[in-house]
């Protein structure tokens, strides 16, 4: 048992380092973690440039086959690249994560050769950005309850409805869109998947302002948007099976959320600086117990990730361990930051310039409720662990065999 690379891994890591040294500068100080939703024009431009550079070398998507611009590498090699890249001061390429992580794999799985040839490379280079259009006001945790209609019109489909919680839609060029093409059959059976240009007439993108003040998500409105049938992904009525391909990837993508890097070290630092009733906070037994409780969760997650990487390194499928990360991280962030605010006392209510560390803990606390919901609520994730990991039965599904337009909706 050790944390060392295998000889092959060490060799690959050296190659990656050499390439990074040649193309980027090492980080000056420690990573401060990227603020969510900070994606202005300039940083996007820089991100595209960096992404293109990676694409030339095959580093943009290491596990993809060479033919489509990948490196034909292993998942472990992707992990190694990410570890090394994180040590360098390079643009945040998060804007491409959903497209490359979810949309393009779906396209590659269901589109024809020519379509793949047309779209994969530009996405890989960051020239074209993709977003995912599944969630709706009417269908949050219950994605398949979506209502956006696509109606056949000759060789086209006419789409009307709206989508919500779409990340990066404001700067996306294309999107994959899940629609209802037949409301008269049970909800999973009447869905069909398309891809479309976000510049299509009738597509309107509006940012959603969150409780934290940030606007990481969008609401998208479709008014008589015309999509050629040639942009259908999978068969008519097979949309749910197609979507599962996409969602399978989402869990992995969202799973590892870290909560903006706020964790025990920052709390430990605070506890050392602050004086409370009986001296330095770090000497207070109640504070120490809290720090210990949160530390064992953080450490537990860290070493769980190491176990997952080990499985990858051994060429095995990683186990379901990954699915626990977000549940643990989100609640920990909420409790830990609230506790830190209490240590700060009455001034813990302040944010921005007047707050300690520009209100890092306050921001963490304000964003935590979103982290507990986005990409699957705590409750949905526990269902997933119970059903997919532990193999417990599904809850009763009263709408399973009911035509969608006959299913109870409360409205």
């Amino acid at each position: 048992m050790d944390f060392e690379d295998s000889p092959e891994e060490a060799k690959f890591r050296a190659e990656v380092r050499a390439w990074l040294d040649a193309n980027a500068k090492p980080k000056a100080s420690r990573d401060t973690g990227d603020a969510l939703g900070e994606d202005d024009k300039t940083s996007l431009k820089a991100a595209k440039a960096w992404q293109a550079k990676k694409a030339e070398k095959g580093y943009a998507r290491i596990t993809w086959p060479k033919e489509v611009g990948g490196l034909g590498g292993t998942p472990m090699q992707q992990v190694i690249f990410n570890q090394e890249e994180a040590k360098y001061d390079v643009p945040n390429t998060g804007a491409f994560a959903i497209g490359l992580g979810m949309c393009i794999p779906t396209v590659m799985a269901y589109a024809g050769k020519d379509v793949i040839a047309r779209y994969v490379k530009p996405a890989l280079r960051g020239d074209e950005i993709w977003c995912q259009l599944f969630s709706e006001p009417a269908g949050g945790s219950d994605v398949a309850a979506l209502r956006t209609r696509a109606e056949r019109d000759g060789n086209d489909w006419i789409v009307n409805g709206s989508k919500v919680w779409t990340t990066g839609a404001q700067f996306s060029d294309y999107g994959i869109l899940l629609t209802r093409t037949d409301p008269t059959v049970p909800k999973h059976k009447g869905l069909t998947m398309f891809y479309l240009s976000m510049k299509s007439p009738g597509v309107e993108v509006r940012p959603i302002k969150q409780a934290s003040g940030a606007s990481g998500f969008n609401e998208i409105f479709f008014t008589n948007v015309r999509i050629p049938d040639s942009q259908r992904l999978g068969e008519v009525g097979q949309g749910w099976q197609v979507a599962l391909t996409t969602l399978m990837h989402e869990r992995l993508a969202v799973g590892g959320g870290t909560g903006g890097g706020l964790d025990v070290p920052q709390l430990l630092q605070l506890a050392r600086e602050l004086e409370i009733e009986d001296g330095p906070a770090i000497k207070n037994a109640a504070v120490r117990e809290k720090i210990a409780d949160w530390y064992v969760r953080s450490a537990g997650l860290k070493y769980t990730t190491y176990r997952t990487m080990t499985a990858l390194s051994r060429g095995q499928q990683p186990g379901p361990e990954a699915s626990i990360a977000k549940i643990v991280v989100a609640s920990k962030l909420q409790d830990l930051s609230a506790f830190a605010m209490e240590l700060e006392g009455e001034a813990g209510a302040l944010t921005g310039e007047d707050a300690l560390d520009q209100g890092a803990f306050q921001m963490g606390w304000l964003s935590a409720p979103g982290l507990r919901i986005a990409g699957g609520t705590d409750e949905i994730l526990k269902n997933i662990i119970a059903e997919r990991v532990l193999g417990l039965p599904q809850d009763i599904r009263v709408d399973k065999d009911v035509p969608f337009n006959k299913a109870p909706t409360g409205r």
Partner: protein
Amino acid sequence: MNFDFSDDQKMLKDQAHKFLSEKCTPKAVRAVYESGSTYDRALWKQIAELGWAGTAIPEQYGGLGLGYLELCVIAEELGRALAPVPFSSTVYQFAESLLVSGSEEQKQRLLPKVASCEIIGTLARAEGVGAVLPKNIRTTFRNGKLNGKKTAVVDGMDAGYAVVLARGSDDAGERGLQLALVDLKQAGAKRRAQQSIDPSRSHAELTFENANAEALGKQGEAWSDLNRVLDRAAVLMAFEQVGGADVCLQMAKGYAMERYAFGRPIASFQAIKHKLADMYVANELARSNAYYGAWALSTGARELPLAAAAARVSATQAFDFAAKENIQTHGGVGFTWEFDCHFYYKRSRELGLALGAQRVWKDKLVTQLELSNAA
């Protein structure tokens, strides 16, 4: 056994409820959030007309002299409505400081104006990050002059007067502390707005440079006086917290009944049902502890310090839990700016910090248990 509010008090509560559900809707709270104004002036004016600020102020000082039980039921309704007005700082803290430490002349001079809401007052304690401790107080009060800086002063932008915890002598400890009463409308008193987690309750930094001020209470008794004020404020604020927690439960219930997923109201899923049941249990315990605090406050019982700490801790825990799980029950929309859930989430934390952290109150609570068991 008569451990509940009287019919008159319940009637007063209903009136307050009716009034606030008309005049202090979520829209009004949102207006303060988005206008950047420090409080709802129209609402404050109407509250003045109702005379709520004078509920517990004796008649000889221009109050209604109704008593603390009446003030408690109003507090619960203000908490329920998240009323964006300087009520708690003016009434629970400034007025109570005067009642605890003020001279007859000071009470005569200021309390009537408080009762009529002509004066907005506040209590300035903290000078920086961390707990408020005697040894950390650097603001000085000497020969009628106040010098120093206070931070995170609630309603400090609008207060006409402040009670300031200062150091009145060279004694660096508790005994050297002195409460100072200062008129903030003078050159020597400057204020600067501070951003806070709850935009519906304004915070400010107050800076004093040779500001004229007067002593409030005796030197050496400042710390114990302050704690007596905090105990009273804790009970009253606990009712605001209980009111807020109750609304969160109602909001979560209402949404869960309306919202369908997988063909059924999400309120029929055990994860939601048990979450709301947990909220209900926490809220009931908090309410009962708050009632005991109300009894102790209204009768001036010697159990007040214990009762206040228990009410404070219980209500803070209940509101924290209800506010965050209300958002969780709503899912994505609950975290949007347009929905009202986040108002309660932010207020729950603001109230939880305003009178000092849970840790401090838990410590007070156990200290009281030790004393009461000492016999």
